[in-house]
C-alpha cells in the first residue's frame, strides 16, 4: 500500500513563497481572494535585538481521521486508498462545514465569481462549478508518479514528499525518528503533514 505524507523543514524554509506560486498555477486557485491551497505564514518573533522571522507553510494535512470528511453531508469529501483527502466538486454543496471543522484552516470557498475571474486570470479553467476547495497533494501528478508542485518547486528542499509505508523512504525515517512532528496531534486528526521545528 501507499500512504503519502509530507515533511516540512522549518529551518530550511526561507519564505520565498515559490510553493504558493507553483500551487496556484498548477491548481488555478483564487489568489485574488487571498485563497491558497498552501500558504506560507510569515511573522516576527521576539523583541529588541532578538527578533527573527518565522515562516510556517500550511496546507491540508490529509488527516487519517479527517473531521472535514466526517462533517461533509453529501460525501463530497473523501479519502483515497493512498490517504489523500479529496473533494468531488460536483457533489459539494459548499455549505462550509468542512472549513469549520478543519483545525488547519485548509479549506476555502471557490465561488461562482471566482470561476468568472479565474477564466480571465488563468485562461482555460479546470473548475466548472463552485465548491469548497483544498490542497489535493496534487493528486493528478501523483497518479503520474510525480510530486506535488510545491515540493518540486521548493528551492531550499524544505518540503519533502514520501510514502510512510516505505521504511527506507527519508520521509518515513524522519517521521519515525520523531524528528518531524505533526501539528496539533492532540485533536486526534492523525495528520500526514509533519514539521521539523527550527533549531
Amino acid at each position, binding site marked *: 500500500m501507499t500512504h503519502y505524507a509530507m515533511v516540512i523543514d522549518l529551518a530550511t524554509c526561507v519564505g520565498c513563497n515559490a510553493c504558493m506560486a507553483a500551487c496556484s498555477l498548477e491548481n488555478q486557485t483564487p489568489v485574488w481572494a487571498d485563497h491558497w491551497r498552501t500558504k506560507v*505564514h510569515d*511573522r516576527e518573533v521576539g523583541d529588541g535585538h532578538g527578533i527573527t522571522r518565522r515562516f*510556517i507553510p*500550511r496546507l491540508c494535512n490529509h488527516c487519517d481521521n479527517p*473531521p472535514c470528511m*466526517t*462533517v*461533509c*453531508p*453529501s*460525501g*463530497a469529501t473523501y479519502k483515497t486508498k493512498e490517504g489523500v483527502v479529496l473533494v468531488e466538486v*460536483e*457533489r*459539494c*454543496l*459548499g*455549505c*462550509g*462545514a468542512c*472549513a*469549520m*471543522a*478543519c*483545525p*488547519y*484552516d485548509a479549506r476555502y*470557498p*471557490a*465561488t*461562482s465569481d471566482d470561476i468568472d475571474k479565474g477564466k480571465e486570470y488563468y485562461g482555460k479553467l479546470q473548475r466548472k*462549478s*463552485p*465548491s*469548497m476547495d483544498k490542497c489535493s497533494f496534487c493528486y493528478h501528478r501523483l497518479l503520474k508518479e510525480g510530486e506535488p508542485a510545491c515540493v518540486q518547486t521548493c528551492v531550499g528542499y524544505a518540503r519533502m514528499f514520501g510514502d510512510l509505508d516505505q521504511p527506507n523512504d527519508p520521509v518515513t525515517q524522519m517521521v519515525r525518528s520523531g524528528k518531524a512532528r505533526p*501539528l*496539533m496531534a492532540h*485533536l*486526534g*486528526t492523525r495528520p500526514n503533514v509533519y*514539521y521539523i*521545528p527550527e533549531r
Partner: protein
Amino acid sequence: MDILTFTTQQHWTTWFAVYLFLGGMGAAVVAVSFLTHMYLREEKELVMWGALSGVAMMVVGSGMLFLHLLNKWAIFYIVSPYGVFHKPDSWIAWGSQFIVWIQIAAVLYALPYMVEKPRLLGWPVIGNILKMPIVLQVAGVAKKIHPLLGWVGIVTGIGTAVYTGLLLQSFPAVTLWHNPAVPILFTVSAFSTAMAWLLIVMYTFIYHRVDHTIRALYERIDLGLITAELIIIFSFFNFTLSGSEGGYRSAEMLWGSNGWLFGFVLFGLIVPLAMEMKCVFGSWSGKVPIVTASLLVLNGGFQLRAYFMAAGIYAYPW
C-alpha cells in the same frame, strides 16, 4: 509548536445563528404541540399554530442556509433519503432528513383540521387549495395515520433540536463547541424558546380557544427549562475558564461582552425566569407579564446562538 494565533471564523456568521435558532425552535414547537395534542388535550388550534408556525420557522431557517450554499443544485444529495445512508456519520445529513420529514409530518398532521376550519377556507388562495378534492383525500388519509404522523413529528422535532448542537460539537478545533454540553444546551434552549413562542400564541392569537391548564403547564415547564439553561451556561463558564487557551479566550469574549451579559444572561434568562416565577407562584396575572417574559426568552435564544458562533476561537501555530 506553540500556538501563536487565536482567531474567529468568517464562514458561518450571524446568518447561521438565525438558522440554528429558527431551526431548533421551529422543530421544538412542532414536537411540543404534537405531544400536547396526543397526550394532554386535543387542542386543534394549538396544533395548527404549532405545525404551521414551526414549518414557517424552519423554512426561513433552512432558507438562510440554502442561500449561502455555493452549489445549490447539490442540495439533492442531502434532501434525498439516500443521503443519510451515504453519509451516516454526518450530522448535517441527519439534520437535513429531520428537517425535511418534520415539515411533511407537520403539514399532514395539521391538514385534517385545516380543511375543517371555515376561516381558513375563506382565504383567497389557501382556501381554494384546501377545498381541492386531492387535498381532502390526503387529509382523510392523514387523519387515519395521525398517531404515526405525530410520532414522526415528535422524533424528528427532538432530533432537529439536538442536531443543531451536535453540528457545532463536530468541530474539534474549537473548545467552546467541541464538548458534550453543546447539544444539551441547544436542545434545552430550543424547547424553552418553543414554549415561549407557544405561550405568546396562546396568550394573544388563540387566548379563548385554548384551555388555561395548557398555558399553566407550559409556564411551569419553561421555568424548569430556563433554570436548566442557566445551570448549563454557568457550567460552561467554569469549563472554559481553564483547560485550554482557546476556551479561556472564548470565555473572555463572552463574559467581557455587555451583549452576552445583559442581552442574553440577564434579559434572556434571569429576568424572564424571575417574571415567570412571579406569574406562576406570585401575584402577577394577565397577559402582559408572561408575553413580555416570553419575548425576552425568544431574544435570549437568538443571542445565545449568535454569541456562540462569534465566540468560537480557533488556535493556530502560525
